[in-house]
């Protein structure tokens, strides 16, 4: 119980790092489990020479890098009475699409998320980790270098390569995003 109380202070951050790295809730939970099991087994030998959080997030970075996503099919039980394509508010996506004033923005948001997931999937584990830690988690490059136990120059190289790849793969979405913003802006002015 004491261990669980300890990790409560940090576990949301660990899950956030995992989720921004792999963009998949099930994989993020896998990483979360692996991190805290490793920590649980190793904590008797932790010497407290560095901060616990620093060590914990370093373990998280390592687990992310070595994680092999298990091909879990989206095999969920569904009631035959339950409508498919249901949104979080219980309405079907069909209903949401026809009645929501921000239809275009919501649809676009879902598509962007999917494209980002695919684009990040094409990066190497190191590039993906650096990009997610910098862009989503706000870590400085020096901090990322410490977490990954490598030189700051190496981290910069991963970031540049990752950003270039994302820029290439998201070009059409980026162009559409600008169009969408302009369109929405015009809509607001009407």
């Amino acid at each position: 119980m004491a261990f669980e109380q300890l990790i409560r202070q940090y576990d949301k951050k660990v899950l956030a790092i995992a989720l921004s790295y792999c963009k998949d809730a099930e994989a993020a939970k896998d990483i979360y489990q692996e991190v805290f099991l490793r920590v649980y087994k190793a904590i008797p030998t932790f010497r407290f020479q560095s901060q616990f959080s620093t060590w914990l997030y370093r373990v998280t970075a390592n687990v992310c890098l070595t994680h092999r996503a298990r091909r879990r099919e989206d095999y969920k039980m569904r009631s035959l009475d339950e409508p498919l394509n249901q949104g979080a508010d219980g309405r079907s996506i069909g209903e949401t699409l026809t009645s929501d004033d921000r239809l275009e923005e919501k649809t676009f948001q879902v598509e962007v998320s999917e494209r980002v997931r695919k684009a990040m999937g094409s990066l190497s584990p190191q590039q993906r980790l650096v990009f997610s830690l910098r862009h989503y988690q706000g870590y400085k490059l020096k901090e990322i270098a410490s977490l990954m136990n490598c030189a700051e120059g190496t981290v910069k190289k991963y970031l540049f390569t990752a950003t270039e790849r994302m820029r290439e793969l998201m070009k059409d979405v980026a162009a559409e995003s600008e169009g969408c913003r302009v369109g929405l802006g015009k809509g607001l002015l009407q």
Partner: protein
Amino acid sequence: MKHEKYQQWIQLQHYGELCEEESILLTAHLNRCEECRAYLKELRKLHQALAAEAEPEPDEELLAAARLELRERLTAERGRQSFWSRLRGAVSGNLLAGWQGLPYAKGFASAAVLIVLGFLVGYATFAPSVGQQEQVDVASSSDPWARGEMEIANVRFLDADASDGNVEFYFDAVVPMHVRGSVNDARVQKVLSHALIRGQNAGVRLRAISALSGDHLEELDHEVKSSLIRAVKLDDNDGVRMEALTALKQFDYDEQIKEALLHVLNNDPNPGLRIAAINSFQNEQLKDPDVIGVLQDKSESDGNGYIRVRSRAVLQEVRQQ
């Protein structure tokens, strides 16, 4: 090489990682270099697009589920460590009493434990299960929605300590189903719609689409259309997207289908699909200003030469009408 250095600085500046001296040098360079200004503009577009992404932060439900699973695994880990410690203690303490002074006593104790465990694992694996003899013969059942034997999966303990006589846990009850029925049955269509989005591989998704296409269908559930649109836009497999696009022709043309076709024309990486999208529009539909706008754009800027030519030809036909 020179541009590469400044383009890397542009990236660092976006994240506030550039020192003051480098910022000044970068500003001076951007005032002179159109290529790097264009790069800056593209990078801004990328970050604007990323800003449109759904928030990747974990919600409370996901965190609660992760904590619950961790608690079960920690309980199992503690139990495993406790069992192993007790077993090792029992073997080395009792069975080898009097032998402890001898060399290799611990090694013999561990070997003995392994042999015992080996027998236990072998028995658990190969012993006939009582349930197997009572399994329902699904294939011969007369019920078109015949159920197989329930399988238990994903047991998650809330309280595995049985010292008070009680335990508490969740589990998933998975029931394999064998179905033989009409494709016009709404329940069958619902399952096929699920398969065409979430089928384990492209072959399964293609077969689901094939089952949901054809003259034998009298009426299609509206969820089928939503699932086909989703497949057209998001499926990884080119063949699945193509078949889904073809299957959408069964439905009356409306705003949703128009939006799906335009999405394919604008975004699909496969030129064959973009061509199929152009060919899916009927004459009257081509007069829609949204469709004309996209075709004009494609006629000028599509990466594929045939698509540019085809778009121009279609626009020409529309103007002549």
